[in-house]
Every structure is written in structure tokens, then in C-alpha cells.
């Protein structure tokens, strides 16, 4: 296995890579890997480029370094870490992270946890030494493999940056600047370039696409057409406003339903349950109203005035001796808590605002019961 070239020099805030020819062999030495023909001398303005740039051109991207990095990365992912290419602890020297090699000038593919720990400790020392000064990332790490390893571990670049302390503020600041659509500030010393995370970049691209699509859709009237289609679809579901029907018609509708449908219909709500129950009983049964365990009232409602029916009548029955007392506190009649009716012997019954009158009965007598103030007295 041999890997020619890769002499990497880190000078200041820039990097110059002299790469003449790169030849990679597989781990088992069986298959040669196509050679990368790289330019001899290329000054890299910014050697950190977004790996997942999705083909977007970047003026600060060096294609050579990117290809090399991708190539070595794919090689490692496919064949694993070959024997003899184990990672070695990077030794920071003068702010440079030298590539760990096994004699073949192989760049460090990934950083182990031990190496990362050492990196972190060295970074902390640097931070203490320089105070709040931003630390050159490129100078410190030398390559992006550290972040690649972090990303492979399921982490996010910003998370990896956060773990590195003060220098990470520069990365985070860069991310925020990029997300706001501004160019990075190269004026600050020690700040090489911005290397956006894949997620950040993809989010930005998605946001820009959505924005562009939404603008185009607005221009083309697509959104309007979609809204109209949704509205038509809603209108296709025809509604029959049953609650706006007259009472007698509504009761007729409920009465003409099949029993199963009446049951389903009554399950819509409590109000509908009571209404359906009352409507079904309407024709064949009388209503039993229990008033505070004192009175039992029976109502024989006619459906139409023309139809001869028994007059609406309350039969007040004496249950115990307490009937004599005036139930001034009784304000509801069984389930019909707000019954407001005016019953007449003529057969008509109609709703009244807040008044209920018990009709006269020959044997027991009649009572006038006002639900508002609970006044109960004989007529």
C-alpha cells in the first residue's frame, strides 16, 4: 500500500498543498485504486469546503482537496481501517495538527476518542493561553476528519464544535452568519473559512427552494388553484343543516330514521341524545318528568294541532307527605333541566321563555310553578 504525495503545509491562515500524484491501494493490496491526477501546485484559498455541497459551486472550494478527502473517506468506509494504518495520536505542534502517518504519509482518517480527548485538552490549554482569542481551526486540527468522525458518530458539527470549547464559538458564529446569508468575515485573524455542516447547508438549500417555489407558485396562481380545489372538495361534502329546521320537521326526520341510525345519531352529543330520545318517544310514548322526587308529570304531546290528541297535562302525584311543602328550590324536572313550557289543555304546547304551568287536575289540583323564582302555588 502506498500513498504518494500529500505534503500538506499549513501556513498562516492559508494552506498550500503540493500534490503531484496520489495513488491509493486497498487494504488487502489486491486492487489498485484509480489514481487521482492532481495539479502540482495549487494555492488553496480555502481548503475547507462543504463536503455535502450538493454540487453548488463555491468560490472558496478547492476541488482537489475535496476530492482527495472524499476519496480517502470513501476508501475507509468501504474497506475499513486497514492494518498498518491505525490512527495515531495527533501531536499538535505550533498550532498544527500533523497528520498521523505510518510511514506512508497517510492522513489521519479519523480520530479516536483518546485522540479527541488529547485534542480537547490541548485546545483548552490554548484557550487559556490566548484568552478569548479565536483559535485557528485549521491550524489546530489540520483537517476536517475530526468533524467527519463526529458526524459519523451521529453527532452534529455544531455539537462537535461545542465540545471543543472556546474555539467552537468561531464555528458557531460562522454557522449563524452563513444561515443569515452573509459572507464570512476573514478579517479576523485565526479564522480561516467557514465549513458549513451538511444539515445546515441542506436546510438552507431547502429553505431557498421552498421560498423560490412559493414565489413561483404565487406568481403562477398555483396556490390559489389549490385553495379553490380544497374549497370545492369541502363543498362537495353537502351539508344539511338539520339544526336550522323547524322543530316539528326535525322531529319528523329523526322519527323516520331507522332505529340503528337513531342510535348513531343520538351518540353525536349529549344534546342530540336527549333530543333523539325525546323525538322518538314523541309519537308513541309520553314523557315522564320527575321533579325533585316530588312530582311525576306525564305529557301527551300532539304532533300537529290538526291531529286530535290528548291534551297536554301534568298529573301531579303525591309521593309522600312532603308534597305539601313548597319545593321552592326545585328548578329542574328530571333530565329536562331547563324545561320552559307553557302547557294548555287545548292540545297545544309551545315553548315559553321561562315559565311552566301545571294544568289543573280534577283530583289533585293544579300548581303554578315558575322556574325562575321557584314560586309554586295552587291556582
Amino acid at each position: 500500500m502506498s500513498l504518494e504525495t500529500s505534503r500538506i503545509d499549513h501556513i498562516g491562515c492559508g494552506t498550500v498543498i503540493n500534490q503531484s500524484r496520489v495513488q491509493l491501494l486497498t487494504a488487502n493490496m489486491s486492487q489498485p485504486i484509480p489514481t487521482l491526477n492532481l495539479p502540482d501546485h495549487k494555492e488553496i484559498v480555502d481548503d475547507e469546503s462543504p463536503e455535502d455541497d450538493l454540487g453548488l459551486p463555491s468560490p472558496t472550494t478547492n476541488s482537489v482537496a475535496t476530492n482527495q478527502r472524499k476519496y480517502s473517506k470513501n476508501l475507509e468506509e468501504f474497506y475499513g481501517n486497514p492494518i498498518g494504518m491505525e490512527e495515531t495520536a495527533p501531536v499538535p505542534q505550533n498550532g498544527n495538527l500533523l497528520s498521523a502517518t505510518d510511514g506512508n504519509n497517510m492522513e489521519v482518517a479519523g480520530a479516536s476518542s483518546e485522540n479527541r480527548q488529547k485534542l480537547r485538552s490541548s485546545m483548552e490549554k490554548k484557550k487559556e493561553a490566548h484568552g478569548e482569542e479565536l483559535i485557528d481551526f485549521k491550524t489546530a486540527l489540520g483537517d476536517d476528519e475530526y468533524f467527519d468522525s463526529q458526524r459519523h458518530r451521529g453527532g452534529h458539527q455544531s455539537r462537535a464544535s461545542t465540545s471543543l470549547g472556546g474555539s467552537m464559538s468561531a464555528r458557531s458564529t460562522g454557522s449563524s452568519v452563513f444561515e443569515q446569508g452573509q459572507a464570512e468575515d476573514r478579517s479576523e485573524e485565526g479564522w480561516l473559512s467557514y465549513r458549513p455542516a451538511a444539515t445546515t447547508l441542506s436546510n438552507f438549500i431547502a429553505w431557498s427552494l421552498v421560498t423560490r417555489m412559493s414565489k413561483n407558485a404565487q406568481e403562477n396562481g398555483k396556490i390559489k388553484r389549490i385553495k379553490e380545489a380544497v374549497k370545492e372538495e369541502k363543498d362537495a361534502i353537502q351539508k344539511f343543516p338539520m339544526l336550522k329546521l323547524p322543530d316539528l320537521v326535525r322531529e319528523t326526520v329523526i322519527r323516520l330514521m331507522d332505529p340503528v341510525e337513531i342510535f348513531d345519531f343520538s351518540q353525536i352529543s349529549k344534546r342530540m341524545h336527549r333530543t333523539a330520545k325525546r323525538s322518538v318517544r314523541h309519537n308513541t310514548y309520553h314523557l315522564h318528568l320527575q321533579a325533585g322526587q316530588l312530582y311525576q308529570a306525564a305529557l301527551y304531546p300532539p304532533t300537529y294541532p290538526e291531529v286530535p290528541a290528548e291534551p297536554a297535562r301534568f298529573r301531579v302525584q303525591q309521593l309522600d307527605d312532603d308534597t305539601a311543602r313548597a319545593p321552592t328550590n326545585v328548578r329542574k324536572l328530571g333530565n329536562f333541566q331547563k324545561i320552559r313550557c307553557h302547557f294548555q289543555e287545548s292540545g297545544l304546547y309551545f315553548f315559553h321563555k321561562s315559565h311552566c304551568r301545571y294544568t289543573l287536575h280534577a283530583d289533585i289540583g293544579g300548581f303554578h310553578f315558575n322556574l325562575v323564582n321557584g314560586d309554586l302555588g295552587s291556582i
Partner: protein
Amino acid sequence: MAPKKNSAKRPQPSTPKPSAPARIVKVQSSDGHILQADVRALLLSSTLAATIKGYDDENKPLEKLEVNNVVGFTLKLVLEWCEKHKEDDPAIAQAEKDKKNIFIPSWDRHFLTKLPMGNLFDLITAAYHLDITGLINYGCKTVANSAKGKSTEEMRELFGIPEPWEQPSTSTATWDD
């Protein structure tokens, strides 16, 4: 042996009587539309029948009937139905009123089913105002049939019933009080 047809449940139209010559009356809707209809068709409405009877008793010429609570389109539907059933016996509708099951003739089924729900609502409401018993029965039966095979939520959607936690509208605030 051929099975017996259960024709007792179905209302049989009465035999056509030797009727008098048609008497056309103009009917004006609430929005100003003027329609023409036979008096026999208008007699299916109790409200209009009382009005016509009042005119006849006073020997006044009946030129135009005003129906103030029905719009033109709905009144046209009502008159179309009445024209179809002007030969029917009103006792049939009265007898069907208290039945639990109402048979809808084919013409009425086709007439009522093809209507959108909104127009059907207007038609039933107009029939209620005009007191046309047969049209009310058939309309209510059509609405009841539309609920067949629907779940509770579908019924709620169909009939526009608010959710239990929703505030009932003003028109339905006291409808079951």
C-alpha cells in the same frame, strides 16, 4: 304461486276525478319572481288553500298570490311537486304523517334525491311554511335516508352538528332547552 305484492303499504293515487277546467293563478315569490300554477296544485298547501278560500268566499278575483317567505327557485320546486301531485288525495299524506316508515314513490325519490342538500333544506322549509304535508313527509324521509350507512362522525358532518365542546350557534342555542 306468485308472491303477493305488499301493496297495502304503498299509497295508491286516487282515481282521477272529472275535474273542472284548470284555473291558473299567479304566485309571486319573496324575491319578485312570478310563477303560474294550477289552483288544484296550490290547494295542497294548507296556507295557500286558506287564502284561496278566503278569496272565493268574498268573491274577489284571485289574480296573484304572494308567498313572502319562499324564494323563487324554491317556489318553483314546490310548484313543480304540487303540479305532479295535484291529483292525489290529501288524505294519503295525512295518513302517512304518523307512520314510522314512509314509502317514497319513484318520481318523488328522483325529484328529491337529485337536489343538493341546500336546496332540499329550502324545499322542506318552504313546505313547512306552506304546510304541504306530503312534501314534508317525503323530504324528511329523504333526509333520513341520506343518513343511512353513515357513522356518527359522518352524520355530524352531514347535518352540521357542532362538536360537544363547541359553542352552539345562536340559532341552535335553545333548540333542545
